[in-house]
């Protein structure tokens, strides 16, 4: 990104800064939060018609928050994120700001409260520039299941931005904000981050509070950051992570000082054991170009002294099947509450039954309906054992695969996606092909472990390729250390 050592930064490039760079500039008085925020809003206005990353742009709120942040900074009371512009995925509640989850049934929904992670970020005085487009309720891998139109990839607008958090990843990659908060159930942060060439972390399940996230699959959902550097991801995790009385699945473990652990506990390649799962690298359908770029990174680590270990996660091939039973089951149950009765858009019908069925018909896109139906079926009498219970058992075997390999290696390295961003419309009608786009990201979700997508190259200098680093549960620091090592080796 931009180098802050230059005097008199032109205001038009402020939106390209990382959190660390923006913090320095704001604290030095090189520019104000109002100027930084204006640069982001100008970029959004210039680009949103084409890229479609934002469903709602919160210009007035942003300017008000920026002014308050400037006052806070002038009093010397700034915190890590004071005055830094960011976006929030539309499936995460922000008090007083329309939050649709990209579904028309919530077209008019204004949450009366903040999600816990958002209240932590807002308490620091960060500046919200808007709510980002996504696949409705997080259902999808291309952002084409949004009822507000697809998000286009900033690197090539004829391609998808990935999903479900396509708007979040595009908003950061296109410098429409400094960082984004999104949600990852089966790859929804990592896959779009890889398609758009930015960093995206799915934290361990239970590390960050899910309170205020529109629930998709409660035993898989996580909230995490998308940003322009490893250090920014570390900063964001320090602010977001930690137990929350409002989410009983958050873990009580102390939140590490991720930034210090990355800086001081710096990984030397020589002490690193990296596992390469053969089930990933030998997958039929893995693009030759993607494979080549990932192998180049692995070779770079090997040359610096890292021990590269070929490992096997034998149940990997079942992860998508487990995912597409367990997740729709939890989806169908969670989305039962989205019925147009207490909030949202209600169809005016004569009976209560018709009010439910028609509100849901008009307010949900196809993929949401499909998932609700698969889940309803999998949980119904007579089928529960064959589908849901069976999937939950295979889920145990997938978790054990990971436990076993993490006895041997520190981290696992894989491509984030088997291919780079695909064309808009290319897979839209092929439900299974779209599901298989998540083949490398869903296993970590099934196991509840952290995974970070790191941008490691581009195909033909155009489409970004992401590399996924996975670690054991709650080993976010280790994952970030390896990402930092890879990034530094690449830059040298």
């Amino acid at each position, binding site marked *: 990104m931009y180098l802050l050592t230059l005097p008199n930064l032109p205001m038009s490039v402020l939106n390209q800064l990382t959190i660390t760079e923006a913090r320095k500039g704001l604290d030095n008085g090189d520019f104000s939060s109002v100027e930084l925020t204006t640069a982001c809003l100008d970029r959004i206005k210039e680009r949103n018609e084409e890229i479609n990353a934002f469903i709602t742009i919160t210009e007035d709120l942003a300017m008000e928050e920026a002014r308050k942040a400037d006052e806070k900074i002038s009093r010397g009371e700034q915190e890590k994120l004071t005055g830094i512009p960011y976006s929030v995925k539309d499936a995460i509640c922000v008090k007083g700001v329309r939050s649709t989850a990209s579904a028309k049934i919530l077209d008019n*929904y*204004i949450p*009366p*409260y903040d999600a816990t992670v958002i209240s932590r970020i807002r308490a620091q005085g960060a500046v919200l520039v808007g709510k980002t487009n996504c696949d409705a309720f997080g259902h999808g891998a291309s952002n084409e299941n949004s009822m507000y139109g697809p998000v286009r990839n900033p690197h090539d607008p004829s391609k998808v931005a990935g999903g479900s958090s396509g708007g979040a990843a595009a908003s950061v990659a296109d410098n429409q904000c400094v960082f984004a908060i999104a949600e990852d159930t089966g790859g929804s942060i990592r896959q779009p981050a890889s398609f758009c060439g930015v960093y995206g972390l799915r934290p361990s*399940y*239970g590390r960050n509070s899910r309170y205020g996230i529109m629930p998709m699959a409660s*035993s898989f959902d996580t909230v995490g950051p998308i940003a322009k550097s490893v250090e920014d991801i570390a900063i964001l995790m320090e602010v977001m992570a930690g137990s929350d009385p409002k989410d*009983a*699945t958050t*873990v009580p473990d102390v939140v590490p000082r991720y930034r210090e652990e990355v800086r001081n506990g710096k990984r030397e390649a020589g002490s690193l054991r990296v596992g390469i799962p053969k089930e990933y690298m030998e997958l039929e359908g893995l693009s030759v170009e993607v494979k080549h770029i990932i192998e180049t990174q692995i070779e770079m680590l090997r040359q610096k002294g890292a021990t590269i270990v070929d490992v096997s996660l034998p149940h990997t*091939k*079942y992860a*998508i*099947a487990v995912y*597409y*039973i367990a997740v729709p089951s939890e989806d*169908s149950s969670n989305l*039962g509450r989205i019925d*147009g*009765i*207490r*909030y*949202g*858009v*209600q169809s005016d*019908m*004569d*009976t*209560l039954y*018709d*009010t*439910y*069925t028609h509100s*849901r*018909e008009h307010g*949900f896109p196809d993929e949401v*309906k499909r998932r*609700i*139906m*698969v889940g*309803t*079926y999998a949980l*119904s009498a007579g089928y529960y054992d064959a*589908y849901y*219970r*069976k*999937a*939950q*058992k*295979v*889920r*145990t*075997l997938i*978790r054990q695969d990971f436990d076993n390999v993490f006895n041997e290696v520190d981290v696992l390295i894989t491509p984030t996606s088997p291919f780079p961003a695909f064309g808009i419309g290319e897979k839209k009608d092929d*439900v*299974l092909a779209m*599901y298989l786009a998540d083949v490398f990201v869903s296993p970590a979700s099934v*196991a*509840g472990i952290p995974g970070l997508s790191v941008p490691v190259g581009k195909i033909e200098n155009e489409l970004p390729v992401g590399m996924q680093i996975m670690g054991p*549960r709650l080993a976010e620091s280790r994952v970030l250390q390896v990402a930092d090592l890879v990034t530094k080796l690449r830059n040298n």
Partner: protein
Amino acid sequence: MKLTISDIDHIADMARLHLTEDEKTLYAEQLSLVLEYVEMLNEVDTVGVEETCQVTGLEDVVRDDVVKKCDEEVRNHIIAQFPVKVGDLLKVKAVFTAD
């Protein structure tokens, strides 16, 4: 597992979804494909394997059973979102019918 239109009708009824005839045909086909795909799970021997119901290892997370008052502002926001209301009350169609 091949789903018929009448299976789809039954599932849509349980899921409280109204579907058009075209949607029924499309979903019957697409859901059948998904169910066919997940049949691969039957290859896996899961005898004696416990189900994964959670991944954190947390047990018996409880809080004091105390009623907390809703913040007045939040309460007003919630009421303001009711699609149909009478005063501060949410209005819904009759739950029970004569037949």
